[in-house]
């Protein structure tokens, strides 16, 4: 099996193959998990130290926007998954539309995020602001965590949108097709991972009781 996939091609990337490419992507996602893990570690320590402060601070979060964004991201994950099945069934047109939908939802998510952040910053809720420095210590740490974690998550969404955009072009050109779709599949894995991170961020920042 291994030998079949690697026989002497001069073009570098073809040395490996479907399984190798997927292994590589999964390994990368595992590093991402540990990367976010460092932040979850900080969150859990500060939440256990400042439980009451976190509760007060979280009252300021807007559950409605948070929930809407969760639904949007889950739905975008759904369309992403569908787009892969579509390509594999040979329907590139449908797949391209589904990918475009995913991108659109990613953008809406970011726009919501923008208004959310903008509103908070407008009211002086950001690290090191005069308002926050007067409040309890845990409250500021909560918002520091909020900005860093949702910020890094949003950065991943932005990167994801870019990559899906590239895949969209490849799908339309036919470079991604029912015989060769590992790039799209790996992009999907990435997008689902970003979705999964949000699945945890949502209760940790919006549903603190």
């Amino acid at each position: 099996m291994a030998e079949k996939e690697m026989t002497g091609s001069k073009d570098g990337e073809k040395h490996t193959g479907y399984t190798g490419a997927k292994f590589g992507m999964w390994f990368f996602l595992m590093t991402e998990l540990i990367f976010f893990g460092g932040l979850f570690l900080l969150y859990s320590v500060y939440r256990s130290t400042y439980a009451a402060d976190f509760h007060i601070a979280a009252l300021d979060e807007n559950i409605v926007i948070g929930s809407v964004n969760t639904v949007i991201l889950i739905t975008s994950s759904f369309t992403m998954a569908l787009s892969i099945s579509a390509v594999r069934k040979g329907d590139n047109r449908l797949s391209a539309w589904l990918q475009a939908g995913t991108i659109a939802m990613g953008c809406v998510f970011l726009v919501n995020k923008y208004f959310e952040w903008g509103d908070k910053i407008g009211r002086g809720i950001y690290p090191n602001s005069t308002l926050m420095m007067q409040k309890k210590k845990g409250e500021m740490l909560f918002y520091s965590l909020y900005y860093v974690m949702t910020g890094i998550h949003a950065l991943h969404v932005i990167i994801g949108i870019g990559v899906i955009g590239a895949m969209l072009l490849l799908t339309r050109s036919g470079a991604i097709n029912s015989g060769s779709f590992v790039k799209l599949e790996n992009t999907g894995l990435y997008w689902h991972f970003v979705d999964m991170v949000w699945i945890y961020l949502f209760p940790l920042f919006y549903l603190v009781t």
Partner: protein
Amino acid sequence: MEDARSHITGYKTYAYIWACLLLLTGLTVTVAKINFTGFSVLICLVIASIKALLVLMFFMHVRYEGAFLKGVILLTIFTLTAMIGLTFSDVWYR
């Protein structure tokens, strides 16, 4: 061996999973309004983990992957748990 390669998940399965995820989101928001004292965090995290598991198993096709990839995921989760757990051996007992 290469089930994930040959297996195409149907549109319907994805739709079911999507519906489940939305239901669970609704559930977690509802539950968060009720005060379960210390258990609230736990309940939130359990629901989130169920959602994550659904995404992992179906959207990310882990269900159809070989034992190796499943092992890698478990290993990483274990590593993360060890990192956080050992840190708490300091934080909780300081």
